[in-house]
């Protein structure tokens, strides 16, 4: 009895796979014509199902697949031309068999479907469908098999032999078995980590070599088991062409799906998690993205719309892109809808950038569909997509250009079981932060540490390259005592959804591969922890849930978000006048200032490093050639020519590196004095070319350099070959 059940299960498993394959083949034939190989593969699918069904005693399945097989036999022999009617009938066979298999699975016994009508239809196709136009490819193929004239396909034994030979190179393994293997490998990784800590205190070479080998083998084993759990993304994608085909017919549109990177592999668990979001995105693309053929024609586009699915690996992550060449997202409509639904106020909307408005698509309850159809447009859409993707540590990015289409980019981790993490210490305990959320580390030392942390309406913020980064103190959130030196601040910059925040920790330790373990039920409710892991020394460390932490600290909450936006806007308004300046000693002992935001880096070069090409001085810098300019030349200031000479005679040159039209340029200055943050009011404007005006900074009159206009002037001068000539 148990054996029979196993045979049945195998039949159902295999049948489902074969049906998926058959469906793909059918759609391939619809798109690209009846390639002999595809027809053969299709034939084999139906044939295998027929065989097993006969053996296990499911006559309905057997008869139906037999009828389909007959049709395919005729096509294979060049006796029947492929018509769209045939394709859709065969697709119906696929559906019907699928239903039968499902009912076999559910009721455990014979199905009570009656496929007679469908069989009749197939037989009609068989009789009444003479070869009208023979496809050219078919001719040569049939020429090689001239003998086959009978209508019932017979050359089967050979195919059976070949297909069973193919399958012997792989075996089916239960998912439970794989999960268990993965868990064991996880344990092994932890034990290995612990062992490696012991090796530090041993000197026995034999022991060291052995543990080194164990280390390597463990890593390889881990990779191999992880690989075994990977599946090509095609397992999810395979059903999309069919879905799009059906949707397109329903909506009267013409849509073609192109796929790139079907073989890209993903962990099972991740595959499950992205299935629904992807399906939703695709439905949206057909329903809202692609326009009707008439509208496309008017817009000067081909009538057939196109959806591109791309998948590839990048930096330990998987990127999935869905793009369409449809109408794009009407940003005004998003604005209008968000107002109607009360997602934002008019005032907030007015202040939002286009990108921010576009991000509202992901807000719960927003749908821009003109009409609610049964396909999409019920306002439960993109927010679910984003939530699901974020749940597995992924991100979603949406770009759209009106009239040209929409591009959705999903980034997800390869696996969830073993992840790289940053270990930090706070209050004497270590915590692991998943690397996927990590953007950068900032370390503030000395007096500047305190000075650079400001408070905007009670919220501590750090100004990171001109952007305000809300700070969350881990010790405060966890209610533990921070143990850190007063003049040192470690900020871990993290990404939570589309927001960034800085997490202040006592100490940043190291990165480690960690095995994620769930917390007991008593601790599940604490949302700032995603689980726990065992570190190399055998101690347990909690894994921080970056999103949960951000929510607890209120840096991502909707209301807070708004308040923050307002504050940022407010602060930025203030920023117009208050910004960081680089102070320089200008030629003739004057003082000049450049906005720090324009500066890439500050460098010093030895005098000997300067080389000459043509009329310009250059230095070799980071594998590139960096042209050097004199500040005096930039200002076209004849008075300072001597000073410039004096500057070039120095042993070391102080250079301000900035980027101009995509390449780096070095500005040779007399001396870099300081970086200040000050509210600057222009006192006098445009005193001379290349200068914005003068202002009082640090109590002294300072000229504000207008770098852009000075450079433009220089570019113009460069065209006339001798930049010095106009002095």
């Amino acid at each position: 009895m148990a054996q029979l059940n196993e045979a049945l299960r195998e039949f159902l498993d295999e049948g489902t796979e074969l049906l998926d394959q058959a469906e793909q083949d059918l759609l391939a034939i619809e798109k690209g014509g009846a390639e002999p190989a595809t027809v053969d593969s299709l034939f084999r699918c139906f044939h295998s199902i027929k065989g097993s069904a006969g053996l296990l005693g499911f006559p309905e399945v057997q008869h139906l697949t037999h009828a389909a097989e007959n049709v395919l036999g005729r096509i294979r022999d060049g006796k029947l031309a492929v018509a769209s009617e045939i394709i859709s009938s065969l697709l119906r066979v696929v559906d019907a068999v699928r239903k039968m298999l499902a009912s076999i699975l559910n009721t455990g016994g014979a199905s009570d479907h009656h496929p007679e009508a469908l069989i009749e239809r197939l037989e009609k196709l068989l009789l009444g469908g003479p070869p009208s136009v023979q496809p050219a490819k078919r001719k040569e193929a049939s020429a090689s098999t001239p003998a086959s004239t009978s209508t019932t396909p017979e050359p089967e034994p050979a195919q059976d032999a070949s297909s069973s030979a193919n399958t012997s190179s792989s075996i089916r393994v239960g998912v439970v078995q794989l999960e268990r293997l993965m868990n064991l490998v996880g344990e092994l990784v932890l034990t290995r980590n612990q062992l490696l800590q012991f090796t530090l205190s041993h000197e026995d070479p034999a022991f060291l070599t052995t543990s080194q080998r164990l280390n390597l083998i463990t890593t390889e084993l881990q990779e191999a088991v992880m690989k075994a759990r990977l599946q090509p993304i095609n397992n999810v994608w395979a059903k999309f062409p069919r879905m799009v085909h059906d949707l397109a017919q329903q909506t009267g549109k013409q849509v073609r799906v192109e796929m790139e990177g079907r073989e890209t592999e993903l962990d099972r668990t991740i595959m499950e998690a992205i299935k629904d979001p992807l399906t939703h995105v695709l439905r949206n693309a057909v329903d809202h993205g692609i326009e009707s053929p008439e509208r496309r024609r008017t817009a000067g586009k081909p009538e057939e719309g196109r959806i591109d699915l791309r998948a590839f690996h990048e930096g330990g992550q998987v990127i999935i892109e869905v793009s369409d060449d449809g109408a794009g997202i009407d940003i005004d409509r998003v604005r209008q809808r968000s107002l109607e639904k009360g997602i934002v106020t008019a005032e907030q909307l007015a202040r939002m950038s286009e990108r921010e408005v576009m991000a509202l698509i992901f807000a719960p309850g927003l749908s821009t569909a003109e009409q609610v159809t049964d396909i999409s447009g019920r306002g439960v859409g993109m927010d679910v997509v984003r939530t699901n993707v974020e749940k597995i540590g992924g991100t979603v990015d949406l770009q759209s250009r009106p009239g040209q289409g929409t591009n959705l980019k999903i980034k997800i981790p390869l696996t969830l079981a073993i992840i790289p993490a940053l270990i930090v210490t706070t209050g004497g305990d270590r915590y692991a932060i998943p690397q996927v959320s990590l953007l950068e580390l900032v370390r503030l030392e000395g007096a500047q540490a305190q000075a650079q942390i400001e408070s905007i309406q009670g919220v501590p913020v750090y100004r990171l390259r001109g952007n305000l980064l809300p700070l969350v103190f881990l010790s405060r959130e966890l209610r533990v005592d921070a143990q850190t030196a007063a003049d040192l601040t470690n900020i871990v910059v993290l990404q939570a959804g589309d927001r960034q925040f800085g997490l202040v920790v006592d100490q940043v330790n190291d990165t480690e591969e960690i095995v994620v373990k769930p917390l007991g039920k008593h601790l599940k409710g604490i949302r700032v922890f995603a689980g726990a892991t065992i570190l190399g020394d055998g101690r347990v460390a909690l894994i921080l849930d970056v999103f949960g932490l951000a929510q607890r600290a209120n840096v991502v909450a909707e209301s807070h978000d708004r308040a923050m936006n307002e504050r940022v806007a407010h602060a930025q308004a203030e920023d117009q006048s208050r910004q960081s300046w680089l102070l320089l000693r200008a030629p003739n002992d004057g003082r000049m200032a450049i906005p720090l935001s324009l500066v890439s880096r500050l460098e010093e070069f030895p005098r000997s490093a300067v080389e000459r090409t043509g009329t310009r001085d250059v230095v070799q810098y980071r594998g590139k050639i960096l042209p050097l300019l004199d500040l005096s030349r930039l200002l076209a200031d004849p008075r300072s020519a001597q000073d410039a000479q004096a500057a070039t005679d120095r042993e070391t040159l102080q250079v301000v590196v900035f980027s101009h039209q995509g390449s780096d340029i070095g500005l040779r200055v007399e001396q870099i004095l300081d970086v200040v943050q000050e509210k600057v009011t222009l006192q006098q404007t445009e005193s001379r070319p290349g200068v914005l005006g003068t202002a009082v900074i640090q109590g002294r009159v300072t000229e504000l350099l207008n770098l852009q206009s000075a450079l433009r002037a220089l570019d113009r001068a460069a065209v006339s070959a001798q930049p010095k000539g106009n002095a």
Partner: protein
Amino acid sequence: MSGRLQFCTFFLGNYFLGVEVERIQEVIRYQAMTRVPLAPGVVRGLINLRGQIVTAVDLRRRLELPEKSGDALPMNVVVRHEDAVVSLLVDEIGDVIEVDEDSFEPPPDTLQGSARELVRGSYKLKDRLLIALDTDRVMCFADGHST
């Protein structure tokens, strides 16, 4: 002859407590613990039990007994609970003893407050009283006890 029950016994201050042997996975000495911020106060931390992460519950706090004086380290009584295991931190481990089902009595009057609700009853032994813990109730603190 009435049934005999086996109890794994331990001490908390003056109390002599026990849990049915079938519920116990193992007894181990003190393990380094990682505290869990924001957790209910009775959770002392997490321990690494051969790769498995186990929540350690301070049984003194759970029974609302005064904190232990002196610096002897507590022991772990690892109890199976539903699908997981939880460690109960106790002062000292006793023997595994057999008791007569007939000797069952209600909890002693000396046991007051909420501790009384976490106890099934007691067994009269020759020279002392064994208090039988109701582990299901002991484990039930996820809500309302958070500090």
